[in-house]
């Protein structure tokens, strides 16, 4: 299959070089397969794109980088545009799964905030175009949480005072990230001992937690099920919304350091419609479209002109567009080396697995099953003897 694709791509390329003019123009008869996060685009944008270019968009959602990776890796579906996060882009580049973009087809790249270009995950900026970015901070309910306790920074998530009212991330990278920051280490540390220290911190946190949570955090924070939750800054708009959210919720970014994340547009290497995909990426970077998306999604936009046109309450809000001092201490995730990543996964599993004391129970059940079975065999033997 791969081979066939390579040949097909080679043929396409050859045709392209033979007919340079027609190949340079996007083909309006194709359907682009776009794979993005849920709630991550203004609902009108895809229709606008089809209206302008004739190219249809088949739009699908994923819930996390890992499940997106699983779909790409299995070859179950071929996508033309995907929106992974920073560390996942690094991983995909390392595995040769992304195509190099032709930036002459993406002139709107010039509008992208230069401080987000040439990031650590794509140092030459050959494979990705930033789509949204933001930082991780703590959402808290002002009705229940004392303003003075915000001094604690990340330690607020370990505070006994709010025991049973604290959430944290239900994914290893973010949960460990916060634990590492709390302990004063780098998010991307390669020292396994520091990871172990972070693990101990997470273990200690378990009793004060209400639960590990991902998307459900919105409902649960709004309903005041819990009062404190670390999450991505851009989601605050939904949670803090006057009508749909809970206006008592506020947000702060601990000053000691945080995680800066970027979700960027990429084209998988096996995309059959790379030219049209680039057209789509360019469209998303256009000021009016970027503005639509920024207003809908609520995450920070890398498109400078769009930011300037945003409502100043958001565009100039330090929670969404943090000052240099916060950004300087913020770290982006890098792809962890295999050994460190595996260590983190093991620790995460250990955190979630049942108390080892339960294994005694397993052994007892096992013994009981063996005893039952042998009793049964003995009984059968007696029965057959009697019968004879």
């Amino acid at each position, binding site marked *: 299959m791969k081979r066939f694709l390579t040949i097909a791509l080679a043929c396409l390329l050859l045709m392209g070089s033979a007919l340079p003019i027609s190949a340079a123009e996007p083909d309006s008869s194709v359907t682009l397969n776009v794979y993005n996060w849920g709630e991550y685009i203004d609902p009108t944008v895809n229709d606008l794109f089809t209206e302008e270019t004739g190219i249809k968009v088949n739009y699908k959602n994923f819930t996390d980088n*890992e*499940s997106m990776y*699983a779909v790409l890796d299995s070859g179950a579906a071929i996508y033309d545009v995907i929106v992974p996060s920073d560390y996942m882009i690094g991983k995909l580049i390392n595995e040769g799964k992304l195509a190099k973009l032709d930036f002459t087809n993406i002139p709107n790249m010039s509008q992208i905030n230069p401080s987000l270009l040439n990031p650590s995950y794509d140092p030459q900026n050959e494979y990705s175009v930033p789509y949204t970015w933001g930082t991780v901070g703590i959402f808290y309910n002002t009705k229940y949480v004392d303003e003075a306790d915000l001094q604690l920074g990340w330690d607020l998530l370990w505070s006994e005072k709010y025991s*049973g009212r604290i959430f944290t991330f*239900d*994914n*290893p*990278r973010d949960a460990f990230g916060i634990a590492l920051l709390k302990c004063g280490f780098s998010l991307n540390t390669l020292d396994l001992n520091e990871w172990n220290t972070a693990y101990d911190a997470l273990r200690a946190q*378990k009793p004060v*937690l*209400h*639960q*590990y*949570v991902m998307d459900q955090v919105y409902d*649960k924070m709004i*309903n*005041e*099920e*819990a009062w404190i939750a670390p999450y991505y800054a851009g989601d605050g708009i939904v949670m803090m919304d006057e009508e749909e959210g809970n206006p008592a919720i506020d947000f702060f970014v601990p000053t000691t350091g945080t995680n800066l994340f970027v979700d960027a547009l990429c084209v998988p290497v096996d995309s059959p419609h790379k030219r049209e995909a680039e057209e789509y990426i360019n469209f998303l970077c256009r000021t009016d479209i970027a503005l639509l998306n920024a207003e809908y999604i609520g995450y920070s936009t890398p498109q400078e002109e769009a930011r300037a046109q945003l409502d100043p309450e958001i565009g100039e809000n330090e929670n969404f567009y943090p000052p240099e001092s916060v950004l300087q201490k913020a770290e982006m995730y890098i792809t962890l080396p295999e050994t460190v*990543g*595996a260590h*983190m*996964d*093991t620790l*995460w*599993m*250990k955190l*979630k*697995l*049942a*108390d*080892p*004391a*339960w*294994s*005694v*129970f*397993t*052994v007892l*059940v096992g013994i009981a*099953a063996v005893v*039952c*079975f042998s009793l*049964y065999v003995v*009984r059968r033997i007696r*029965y057959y003897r009697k019968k004879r």
Partner: protein
Amino acid sequence: MIKSRGAAAPFAVWMALFTVIPLGIVIWFAFTDDAGNFTLSNLSSIIEYAGTFGISIALGAIATVICLVLAFPLAYTISRTQGRMQQTMVMIIMLPMWMNFLLRTYAWMSILENNGFINQLLRAVGLLEAGHSVELINTSGAVVLGMVYNFLPFMVLPLYSVMAKIDNSVIEAAQDLGSNVFQVFRKVILPLSVPGMLSGITMVFVPAVSTFVITKLLGGSKTLMIGDAIETMFIGQGANYHVGATLSLVLMVMILICMAVTGMVDKGEEDELA
């Protein structure tokens, strides 16, 4: 005879494609490493999950026992009613199953939450001070409750179908011979409903042990059950298909043992009757 064999051919193809081959793939994954070489290291790494198996078995067993205790009198009552009434009652048992499993579990979530139905009710009645709440959600109890609620029909239906076949005259005969209510139950109804109990136990215990999502929604994702552990081994950053396949294989063997044990009891009954 030949005709009936021919009729089974589509099923044979189906079985081969969607049961036998996938099972083969699971086994292959369980005994190989990333490079495709034979290894037993996956099997030995399962020891770490011993506790998880334990807690899954324990919660599954508790849920099964509760289901049995709840379902037995209910199934008996249904089996002793007549006609229309009986059909309606069976229908009511089946009714919740027409709704999506996730939806039902979400509903429990909003009942048990800190600001959920029960806590609000307790506050309204004055049993709880404002701002306080009983911790119901994110406990093992909530997980067991979720399992009982979702799997109860699987216990009631087999029990009911076996009990419906108990002839009233058998009960009357026991009464005529001087048995009191308790003796009728112990000597007649209980032994005659054993087959229903056994299939009910299997049908509740097996999905309860391997359940996932319930732990996430009602248990706060704090302690994984074996089903959740398998899920994270296939989706997620730490995905390891080999360990995941081994876990599934061990779970399968466990379920086979469980079915063998219930089968043994069944056989034992037959022997006694013979």
